[in-house]
């Protein structure tokens, strides 16, 4: 912070000739090109190091201890890689990880398909388009906790979903007051549906800006040359939208793998452990069962797993951006 304030003093009064007072000389030194460009960089890196990097180093240290909340930190014994072995040997850890990918995969595929269809339907101007866009973008702004709460109200056994289904169920003698969140599979899809409700708005937004960026001349040229609408879609629209698709896939997958809020609000990981995502599982281990060293080892392992995906995602984004730049030139 201090770093970015000092040059502000320099900017207010450009350095005059003659002998400047020491304060101004410092400011002049700071506003030099080679110094100035580094100040924000250093400030931001300092924030990252203080808030993110140091805690991670500490976590690596704690993960090598054998320590739970029942004794002081200073008396913990050193235990080597015992915690890592315990994490890797736990079935719950692997199942939670697999479930996270299952939720994220199902949710992201649905969001991409629906978001794309909606953006395609709305990419040309017609009456009411702005209103639709406004409504479709609204879920992105709704606080995720509120989304979880809303859907828990809808799935409740005497809620509106069962009321809608009642005319179809009652003739068969089924009690329409189904407890959706008590059945493992239904609870899993209930969470996926809540995620789709909220985040289709984001894929929709990305595709919409992708359609807005389409060079209209190319589409017109294809039409003049006699391409049919389906040809225009598959041969012109889709290839040009590749950057948007990549961005949507990367961003949504990354966010979906973090899934936590709907799990807490809707099911608390239940019934049994059938809706525990990895984030929920770790939260429970550390904040409910107070297994600090175990949680530290698990979070380091998780970071290593995720690093593969993160770098894959970043690589895809970089490649996409460079291809855009090449087209420009």
């Amino acid at each position, binding site marked *: 912070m201090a770093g970015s304030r000092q040059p502000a003093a320099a900017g207010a009064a450009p350095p005059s000739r003659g002998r400047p007072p020491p304060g101004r000389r410092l400011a002049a030194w700071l506003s030099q090109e080679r110094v100035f460009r580094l100040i924000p960089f250093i400030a931001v890196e300092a924030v990252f190091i203080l808030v993110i990097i140091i805690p991670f180093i500490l976590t690596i240290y704690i993960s090598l201890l054998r320590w739970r909340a029942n004794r002081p930190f200073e008396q913990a014994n050193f235990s080597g890689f015992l915690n890592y072995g315990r994490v890797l040997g736990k079935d719950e850890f692997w199942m939670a990880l697999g479930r996270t990918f299952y939720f994220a995969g199902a949710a992201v595929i649905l969001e991409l398909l629906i978001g794309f269809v*909606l953006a395609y339907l709305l990419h040309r101007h017609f009456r009411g388009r702005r209103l639709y866009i406004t409504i*479709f973008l609204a879920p992105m702004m709704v606080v995720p906790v509120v989304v979880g709460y809303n859907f828990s109200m809808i799935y409740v056994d005497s809620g509106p979903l069962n009321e809608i289904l009642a005319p179809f169920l009652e003739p068969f003698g089924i009690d329409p007051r189904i407890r959706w969140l008590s059945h493992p599979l239904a609870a899993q899809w209930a969470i996926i549906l809540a995620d789709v409700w909220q985040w289709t708005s984001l894929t929709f937004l990305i595709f919409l800006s992708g359609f807005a960026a389409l060079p209209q001349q190319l589409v017109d040229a294809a039409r003049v040359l006699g391409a049919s609408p389906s040809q225009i879609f598959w041969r012109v629209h889709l290839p040009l939208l590749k950057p948007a698709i990549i961005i949507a896939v990367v961003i949504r997958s990354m966010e979906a793998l973090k899934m936590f809020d709907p799990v807490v609000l809707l099911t608390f990981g239940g019934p049994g452990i059938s809706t525990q995502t990895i984030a929920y599982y770790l*939260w429970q281990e550390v904040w409910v069962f107070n297994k600090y060293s175990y949680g530290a080892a698990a979070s380091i392992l998780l970071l290593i797993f995720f690093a593969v995906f993160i770098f894959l995602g970043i690589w895809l984004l970089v490649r996409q951006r460079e291809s855009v730049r090449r087209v420009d030139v």
Partner: protein
Amino acid sequence: MRPGGRSRLRRYRQAWVRHAILLAWTFFIVFPLYWMLSTSFKDAGEWVSWPPHWYPHEFTIHNYRQIFTFSALGEELSRDATEQAFSIWKALGDSLLICSVASFLALVLGVFLAYAISRFAVGGSKFRHIILTIRMVPPIVIAIPILMYYAIMIPFTTELLFGARITLFDTYFGLGALYVATTLPFVIWMMLSFIDEVPFTLEHAARMMGAGRMYTLRRVVLPLVASGLVVTYLFVFILNWSEFLLALTLTHPEVTTLPVLLNKFQSASEGRLYGPQAAIGTVITIPVVVLGVLIQKHLIKGFSFGMIRR
């Protein structure tokens, strides 16, 4: 039939199908929000009645009075023992304070860095992507180290250095600092897409006439990206406002943000309090949705990630 007539017929049918799909999705989007709004005006007996009431039969603002009450409760309000926990004021204040200050600091830091990246390619040509990695790390992976850092290492270090145990766990500063760090990548990304579009020649001209670096930035660049600054600030504010995991794990019981308060009633042992929850949900949703609608046009641009080039 003339060919023109047939194509017009087809266009009508297309428009009809399009509106049918769009209206179906509109219903799916609007219904949960409507249900929350209507529950928030329902009396206790109607929250989970069967068959459910599509609209409040006995319209009441009791739920809102409960959450906005200060502390002294009238007899009609003290229906059960958890009344004290309802008051939303503390959480509202905490949320507003942390989110507005953290978003502002992130914006200030991020704008300068975005400018440096855009103009001088500070940190190398790949740096703008590398900075996104921080955003992609799952928050639970950050929360565990931060818990140990705030609750163990900082008290331990301060005791060694100053002789007093200072903890950052459950403090405004602790949560705010984390919000600054986790939203910085977004600030930098969004501001980059705005600053990249400011022509360099303008700055060059200002520099030629003897303006300082900082003067150029403040008088030439920042006014040109003013709308970008506002949009980015609001967007980051919304991100912090809806953040749940970090607030849940790193604060208890002193600092309470609104999502944490809403979650408190979810597992309440005396039965869930659907009405007040719906009222809280409505209260924390409406401002951000309004903000979102206001910045909607710019969001489309901010989220283009360099796809839109002019």
